[in-house]
């Protein structure tokens, strides 16, 4: 990587540089500190404050005592640990199996399952949970009732309102992520190692166990770690399934501390700081392990195609698994939402139910103002958040990777910080910051915009830096040599070259903003309510069939964003 000529402050100290280029990194650092660091500072401060009388605070350590030495500390810790490790393991197993079957075996029809495996990514976590409550509720869950009738059972086999239920629901939503990471790992594996094993007389299973599997261990470790951290940070399943089942994890404890009377900011803050530390530790270990694993990396300049394992007759079992997975995990949640959206009230699929089907819920939504307000807010926020995040990160990435300004690594670090902040923790920090902020943006969609931009800057950074690294500096140097200023070079050379990567990042942030829940749940109020929160409140209020209809419309919107994504980038899958 070479550098592009940034104007130098000639004769340091003799005059203030007139070229604004030097101000850009400072501005970038300022923006990032404001977005990523300030809220965390407020959070830490808040965790040491206790309210002695309405709106009178003192500094204390009591909050930490209340958060970590109460009668519930152990159960919360245990639930969180089981939930996160169980989900990480299940997600990893399912994702790896899918990736292996589709990438590295001769399972029939495997090609069509690649895009299908990614589809659940667009299903918002709130809807995923709701759909599985419909399917696996202990009393009326469709799947439960069906299995009971099929096998003539006395009781219903599954109860979604349990830790295994939470693990299952959260896992199936995360599988696409594990799938994509493992596909990448399988793709980059040098087949010559496996071939050598085969040549030496190992059979398929032995080769898999003694070569493939071992090659995967470093990647597997880091994938498991990131899945663990993401589960720990998640709030959708803990909110919709955990709270009714009285199974509390850290995120739900934070949420409840905020919503009890009087709201206990101190305890919530102390819990949030703990979760933040855990998550930061996880991310740190993850980055360390991925750096380490590069030492053993099997990606070389050699052109190769990963070998395909011949599964023999087992390939039909592979196909069977893919079909069962597709039907039960991908299709069924969509279908159950679709079915419920046509019902006047929740009822199992039956002839009797068929007669009740109507478009009533959709007609109702057509005239239901909160729905349109929320839809409008969600769309505005997704577009603005994606635009703002990509603008900030393309500039920051350019400074980090193309200029050789001293200290530009600080920018890289700052842009990475938000990835360690769980959504609900950010929501809490932002309330503490903006409720007393001189500019009245609390309670408006602008505070949500700030939240989304902050949360998704690391994603933007990833998309932008990936593209920036690919641009050879000669092009920029040529522009500079032809007399273009820094800004002109950035605008007329760099930016157009970056466009495909930026568009991909933009659409990705659009999607994740549109489905965002865990930060919004604390920040969105009446006027600034977004779709995911409307879904949550209406589900709490029991309008489940209308919720299903909103869900269907939300999925339709997301699908059109994805269609746009395919059209613009022509790529399969999303960047992780």
């Amino acid at each position, binding site marked *: 990587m070479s550098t592009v000529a940034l104007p130098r402050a000639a004769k340091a100290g003799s005059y203030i540089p007139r070229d604004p280029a030097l101000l850009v990194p400072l501005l970038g650092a300022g923006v990032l500190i404001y977005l990523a660091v300030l809220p965390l500072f407020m959070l830490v401060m808040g965790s040491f404050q206790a309210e002695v009388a309405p709106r009178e605070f003192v500094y204390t350590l009591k909050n930490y005592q209340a958060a970590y030495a109460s009668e519930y500390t152990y159960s919360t810790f245990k639930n969180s640990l089981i939930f996160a490790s169980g989900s990480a393991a299940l997600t990893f197993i399912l994702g790896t199996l899918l990736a292996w079957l589709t990438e590295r075996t001769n399972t029939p029809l495997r090609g069509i399952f690649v895009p299908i495996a990614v589809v659940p990514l667009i299903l918002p976590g709130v809807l995923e949970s709701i759909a599985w409550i419909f399917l696996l509720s202990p009393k009326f869950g469709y799947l439960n009732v069906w299995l009971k009738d099929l096998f003539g059972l006395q009781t219903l086999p599954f109860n979604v309102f349990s830790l295994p239920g939470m693990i299952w629901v959260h896992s199936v939503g995360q599988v696409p992520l594990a799938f994509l990471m493992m596909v990448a790992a399988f793709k980059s594996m040098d087949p010559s190692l496996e071939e050598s094993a085969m040549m030496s007389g190992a059979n398929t299973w032995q080769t898999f166990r003694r070569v493939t599997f071992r090659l995967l261990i470093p990647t597997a470790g880091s994938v498991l770690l990131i899945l663990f951290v993401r589960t720990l940070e998640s709030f959708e399943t803990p909110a919709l399934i955990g709270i009714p089942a*009285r199974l509390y994890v850290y995120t739900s404890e934070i949420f409840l501390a905020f*919503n009890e*009377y009087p709201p206990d900011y101190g305890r919530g803050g102390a819990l949030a700081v703990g979760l933040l530390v855990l998550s930061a530790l996880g991310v740190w270990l993850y980055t360390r392990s991925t750096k380490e694993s590069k030492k053993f990396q099997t990606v070389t300049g050699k052109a190769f195609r990963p070998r395909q394992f011949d599964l023999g007759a087992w390939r039909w079992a592979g196909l069977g698994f893919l079909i069962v997975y597709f039907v039960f995990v991908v299709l069924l949640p969509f279908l159950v939402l679709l079915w419920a959206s046509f019902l006047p009230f929740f009822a199992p699929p039956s002839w009797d139910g068929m007669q009740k089907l109507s478009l009533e819920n959709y007609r109702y939504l057509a005239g239901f103002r909160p729905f349109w307000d929320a839809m409008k807010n969600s769309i505005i926020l997704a577009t603005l958040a994606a635009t703002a995040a990509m603008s900030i990160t393309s500039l920051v990435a350019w400074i980090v990777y193309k200029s050789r300004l001293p200290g530009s690594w600080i920018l890289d670090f700052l842009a990475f910080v938000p990835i360690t902040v769980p959504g609900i923790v950010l929501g809490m920090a932002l*309330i503490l910051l903006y409720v007393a902020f001189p500019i*009245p943006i609390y309670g408006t969609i602008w505070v949500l915009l700030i939240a989304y931009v902050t949360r998704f800057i690391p994603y933007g950074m990833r998309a932008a830096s990936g593209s920036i690294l690919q641009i050879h500096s000669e092009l920029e140097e040529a522009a500079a040599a032809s007399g273009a200023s820094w800004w002109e070079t950035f605008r007329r050379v760099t930016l157009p070259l970056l466009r495909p990567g930026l568009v991909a990042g933009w659409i990705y942030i659009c999607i994740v903003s549109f489905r965002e829940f865990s930060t919004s749940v604390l920040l969105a109020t*009446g006027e600034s309510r977004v779709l995911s929160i409307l879904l949550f409140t209406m589900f709490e209020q*029991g309008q489940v069939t209308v919720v299903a209809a909103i869900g269907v419309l939300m999925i339709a919107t997301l699908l059109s964003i994805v269609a746009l994504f395919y059209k613009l980038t022509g790529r399969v899958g999303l960047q992780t």
Partner: protein
Amino acid sequence: MVRKSRGVITALGLLVAVLVLAEAKTLWAQSLDELHKAAVKEGGTLNFYATLAQINAEIVLPLFEKRFPGLKVNHVDATSDKLVARAVSEARGGRILGDVFQTPLENVLQMHDQGLLLEVKLPESAAYPEGLKGSFWVASDLQFFVAAWNTTLVKKEEEPKSFEDFAHPRWKNRLIAEPRDLEMVLAFAKYKFKSDEKSIDLWKKIALNNIEFHKGHSQLAELLVAGQAAACLTCYSHHFPIRIKKGAPLNYMLSEGVASINGTAVFKNAPHPNSAMLYARWVASLEGQKAMAQGGRNPAHPKVEPTDKTRTEKIYFITAADLKEFPKYEKIWKEIFKLR
């Protein structure tokens, strides 16, 4: 002559009386109209922190907006504890965003404890008996905690006649309730049995049937329709007529029930004080109460009847004074059901 002058005096007296009455009437009308004008002038928005369920709100609020053109209600709806938490959080940050607060009375009192509500006597509250109004609130509607059941899961002969019936083991694993409804144990102790022990005893027996708890009364009703449970112990009566009309397999017990008050209050330093006052006065008025009835709620105004049959025969009424004992009964309730 004397007679004539008497007649004149009487006529004059009448005229004056009529004029005064007319004047009073115009003053009355004027003040609402004036409030309306001032409300539009101050922004035309009403930030309405209320637990009014969506199915009720979508009828009641448009009636208000239609009656007072130029006003738009921004309904911040959540469960009552979340609304208090939100308002308290905002106040801590030095911001008052809400105009009107309308929730169960206990939450209105919590808001008052936090010093967030305006002390105000609305002219409309004169029509309400003591117990349905206070120095900073007036009742918006009443709600009745009743037992309800899914008619496909509960046979005709099984239908409960009183709450005692739910102590029978045939209800084991078939009941749902709201985890925060300590009103039940309180009202039974104070008004049904007039004895703490008897009330606790009954609820302990019911607890042996392993109650499943879900937050939010609308969700309870919906879960009941779906068949999550056979019967609900603490459902709101006004949730049922609307669903039964749609064909849901439900019925509810009107022999006895616990009544509690929802109150309306105005935020101190509300950002839209005129809109706030206008709504508070309107919803307490005959017209507003009729709108509440139309929206499916149980009006608190003595002269307005509910549209549907939602008042129980025997009513155990929770008064504002009882609210002071909530902590005591909350503890009992949580102990009985091992709730957090």
